[in-house]
C-alpha cells in the first residue's frame, strides 16, 4: 500500500517537474551549440527564398541567411536543420522553441513585434504586395479589380492589405482564401480567380510555375510595405544581437567589397573597417559569444548579401528580379547597416 502511494506521489512529482522544465531559460546560443545545429524555420517552397533544389538541398535568400548564422556559430554552413513551415504555423513554431530562428519571408509589423513575443532583427528583403492577372483582361490598375475574385493565402498580411485597399476605396471583391500557397496558385491557374495576390517577389516566383507564364502580367501597382526579415524570440538579448549583427555583417561585407572569392585576401587589408569586420582587429565576436572571425565565416561560406541576392532571386536566377530598393543605401536602395566598431 505504502509502496503504491509512493509510486503515485513520484509520478505526480515527475509530471509537475516536466511541466516546470520549460520555466528554466538557458541561453539560446548555449542550447544551439550543445545541440550541434541551428534550427531554422523556412518557407515550405518559395522559389528564390527557400525551396529544395533538384538535389534536395535547400536554397534561397532566406536559406542563405540561416546558413550564414550557422557559419558564424559553427564555422560550418551545413549545421542547420531546416524546418519548413506554413504561414499559419510559423510564429507558434518560434514561440514554442521548435526553431531558434525564423527566416521565412515574414513581414515585420508592429503587432507581430510587440504582442506575439517575437523580435524582428532587421530586413533581408524590401517587398510590397502586388497582383498577378491574366494579360487578356487588359488591366492597368488594382482598382480596376473591383468585383473580381482574388485568390490568396490565409494567415498573411496580404489578406489584410487587400481588405484595407478595397475598403478605403469603397470597392467590393470576392476573396478566395487557401491555407497553402500551392492550392491558391492552382485555383488561380484554373480560373477560379481573376487575380492572385502576394508579395511582389512571390508573384515572380509563382508565375514561373504557371502553365503559360507569358499569359500573365504583374500589375505595376504595389499596395503595401512588406519589409521581410528574420525574427527570433524575445527575452534573449545576446541571441537577438547575434542574429541581428550577422545580418548587418552580411550587408556591410557587400558595402566594403568583401566577397566570397576575395575574403581571404581581404584578411590582409589595411582598411580598418574591413579589419574590424573580418576580426583581424578588435574583439567584436566576444560581445555576441562567438570567435572574432564570425563575420569572416559568413562571407567565406555564403558570400555577402549582394552575392546571395543575385544568385537566388536576381540576375543569376530564373526569377530575375531587379535589385531596385534592395540595393545598398549608397547605390540608391534601402539597405543600411550600422557600422561594426
Amino acid at each position, binding site marked *: 500500500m505504502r509502496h503504491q502511494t509512493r509510486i*503515485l506521489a513520484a509520478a505526480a512529482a515527475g509530471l509537475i517537474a516536466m511541466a516546470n522544465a520549460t520555466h528554466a531559460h538557458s541561453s539560446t546560443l548555449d542550447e544551439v551549440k550543445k545541440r550541434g545545429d541551428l534550427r531554422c524555420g523556412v518557407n515550405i517552397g518559395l522559389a528564390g527564398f527557400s525551396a529544395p533544389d533538384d538535389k534536395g538541398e535547400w536554397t534561397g535568400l532566406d536559406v542563405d541567411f540561416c546558413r550564414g548564422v550557422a557559419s558564424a556559430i559553427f564555422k560550418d554552413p551545413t549545421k542547420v536543420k531546416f524546418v519548413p513551415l506554413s504561414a499559419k504555423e510559423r510564429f507558434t513554431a518560434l514561440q514554442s522553441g521548435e526553431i531558434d530562428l525564423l527566416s521565412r519571408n515574414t513581414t515585420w509589423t508592429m503587432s507581430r513585434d510587440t504582442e506575439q513575443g517575437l523580435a524582428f532583427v532587421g530586413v533581408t528583403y524590401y517587398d510590397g504586395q502586388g497582383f498577378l492577372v491574366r494579360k487578356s483582361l487588359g488591366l492597368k490598375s488594382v482598382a480596376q479589380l473591383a468585383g473580381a475574385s482574388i485568390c490568396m493565402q*490565409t*494567415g498573411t498580411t496580404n*489578406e489584410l492589405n487587400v*481588405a484595407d485597399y478595397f*475598403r478605403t476605396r469603397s470597392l467590393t471583391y470576392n476573396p478566395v*482564401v*487557401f491555407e497553402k500557397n500551392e492550392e491558391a496558385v492552382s485555383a488561380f491557374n484554373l480560373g*477560379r480567380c481573376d487575380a492572385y495576390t502576394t508579395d511582389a517577389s512571390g508573384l515572380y516566383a509563382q508565375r514561373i510555375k504557371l502553365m503559360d507564364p507569358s499569359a500573365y502580367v504583374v500589375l505595376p501597382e504595389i499596395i503595401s510595405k512588406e519589409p521581410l526579415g528574420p525574427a527570433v524570440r524575445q527575452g534573449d538579448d545576446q541571441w537577438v544581437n547575434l542574429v541581428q549583427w550577422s545580418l548587418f555583417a552580411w550587408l556591410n561585407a557587400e558595402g566594403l567589397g568583401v566577397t566570397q572569392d576575395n575574403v581571404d585576401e581581404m584578411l590582409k587589408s589595411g582598411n580598418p573597417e574591413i579589419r574590424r569586420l573580418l576580426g583581424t582587429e578588435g574583439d567584436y565576436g566576444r560581445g555576441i559569444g562567438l570567435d572574432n572571425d564570425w563575420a569572416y565565416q559568413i562571407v567565406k561560406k555564403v558570400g555577402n548579401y549582394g552575392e546571395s541576392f543575385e544568385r537566388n532571386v536576381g540576375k543569376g536566377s530564373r526569377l530575375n528580379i531587379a535589385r531596385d530598393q534592395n540595393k545598398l543605401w549608397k547605390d540608391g536602395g534601402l539597405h543600411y547597416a550600422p557600422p561594426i566598431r
Partner: protein
Amino acid sequence: MANARNEPPQPTQSFAWLYDPRTRGIILQIALLVGVAAFFIEIALNTAANLKAQNIATGFGFLDRTSGFDISQTLIPYTSTSTYGRVFWVGLTNTLLVAVIGIVLATIIGFIIGLGRLSSNWLVARLATVYVEIVRNVPLLLQLLAWYFTLLIALPLPDAALELPLGIGVTNRGLYLPAPVWQPGFGAVLMALLAGIAAAVAIGVWAKRKRLATGEKVPAFWYGLAVVVAPPLLAFFAFGAPLSFEYPEPDRFNLEGGIVLLPELIALLLGLTLYTAAFIAEIVRSGIQAVPRGQKEAAAALGLRFWQVQRLVVIPQAMRVIIPPLTNQYLNLTKNSSLAVAIGYPDLVSVFAGTVLNQTNQAVEVILITMGVYLAISLLTALLMNWFNARMALVER
C-alpha cells in the same frame, strides 16, 4: 484470562479504518483526482506564466478587436470592420451549414446505396458494392481536392457562363440561383402555409384514431396534401403574386446578384456527403441483415404486402441496430468538415482557428474555443441521436 489469550491481536484501534478496502479505495480515488487536477492546474498556470514571460498577449480581449479581413461566404452580416468575435460566428454558421446539409444528404444517399447493396438486381447490388469499396478506401482530403479541382476545370469560366432555365447560371465561380424578393403581402401566404401544415397534422391524428377505433381507412395523405398546398396557393394569387426574383446578371468579372453557391461549398458537400454515405450504406445494410429472416416470413404469413413488411416490421427493428453507429458517422462528418480549409471554404477552422489565430497569434485561446465548439456540436448531436434511439428502442412487454 484464558479468554483474553484466545483473542486475536488487536491492531491499534484508531488505524483500523486504514485497512478497510473500501476506505482505501476511496482514499486512492481522491488522491488520484487531486493528482490529476494538480497536473492540469499546473499546466494552465505554467502556460500562463510562460506566455507572460515571452511577452505574448493572453486573454479573450481580442474577440472585441476589428478583424480587418474579408470572408467569401457569410450567412450573417459581416464586413472587414467587424470584430474577431463576429468572425467566430461566421465560421461557426458556415460549419453548421455544411454539417446539416451534409448529414441530410449523406443519410439519404447512404440509405439508397445500402438498400442497393441488398437488391436482388445483380447490377444494382454490384454497382453499390463498387461504390462503397472505392469511396471509403480513398482518403477524404484527396477526394475533396479532386472534387474541387475537377469542378474548377469542368465548369465554364464566367465569360462563357452556362445559362440554365429559370435564370440559373453556372460558372466555375459558383452556382448562381435567382434570389426571391418578398413583396408586401407575402406574409399572408406564409401564414396560410403554416395553417395548412397544422391542419394536415390534425387530419393525420384524426385518421389514425379513426382507423384504430373502427378499422376504416381514410386517405389522410391526400387530404393532408390538399390542405397544405391549396390555402397558400389561393393566398398567393389573392394578394397578386407578391413574389419576384432577382436574377444573376453578368458583370465585368463574375455574374452578380442572386444567391451564389461557391464551388468550395459544392466541392466540400460532394466530398463529405459521398464519403460518409459509403459508411452509412454499410451500416444500413448490416442493420437490415441483422433482422432475422423469420420476422419477414412471419409478417408475410400475416398477409402484409412487401412495403408493409419493410415499413412495419423490418425497418423499425433494423433502426435499433443502425442508429448508434449512424450517430458516429454524423459526428465524423461534422468533424471532417474542418478539412474545408484545404479547398478554401471559410469554415470555423479556416477563418477562426486559421486567420484569426494567425492575426492575433493567441493560439491557446483560439484553439481552446474551437475545440470547445466541436465538442459542443458533437455532444449535442449525440444527445439528439440518443433521444431518437430511445424512442426507436423496442418496447418490450
